[in-house]
């Protein structure tokens, strides 16, 4: 999961390295994702998260498509 200056840089990197396109989101969207994603994970009470709850995070943020499907 790499950071790029622009979408154009992503496509140049994909062409140069031969990696397939997966998914791309901007920094603001990632900040919106990591807050619920990492909520509670420092707590001694953390016991993991179900796939259903993880999927709900993606769905709630409008992260759609096969890339974001857990099952």
């Amino acid at each position, binding site marked *: *999961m*790499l*950071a*790029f*200056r*622009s*979408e154009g*840089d*992503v496509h*140049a*990197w*994909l062409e*140069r390295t031969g*990696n*397939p*396109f*997966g*998914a*791309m*989101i*901007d*920094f*603001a969207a*990632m*900040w919106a*994702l*990591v*807050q619920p*994603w*990492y*909520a509670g*994970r*420092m*707590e*001694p009470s*953390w*016991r*993991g998260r179900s796939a259903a709850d993880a999927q709900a995070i*993606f769905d709630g943020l409008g992260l759609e498509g*096969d*890339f*974001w*499907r*857990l*099952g």
Partner: protein
Amino acid sequence: MTDGAPSDDRRSQPVSGGTPTELDWAIRTAIYQNFATTGAAPSYAVLAEQFERTLDQVSESITRLLTAHEIAPFADGTGVFMANPFSAVATDYAVETAGVTVFANCAWDALGVPAILGTDGWIRTHCAERATPLEFGIRDGALTGDEGVIHMVVPIRDAWVDIGFT
């Protein structure tokens, strides 16, 4: 000088596989707290002493936590490699917070550091294509700095097939 009662030595207790035990979760917590306060992973020796277990028992705990996608050890099993968002090795995702500077595993985890700590955090990295500096992060609770995008190759459901590559 025993009276036949079962040994109270935890080191003699048998191994259990499968889902993480309460001790495993406590070890996970200790790993995360060490990263949060020092920027580094605790060694297996430190964990063994803290939890009064053998090195093999700590290794078995880490294996169960790996199965649960909570902790990733080095491939040679000698220590903690990742406790997302924290990396035990230097990466191009250094995150500076008020209390500690840590390495994140990737761009997702770089923003994950201020998220998990509930603090501000400043990321210094580079555009993966241009190799030019990118600096951004959370100040006063808000995202600021350079704008950019994050690309992910591996679909989320396969992230832990090879978490190091992901």
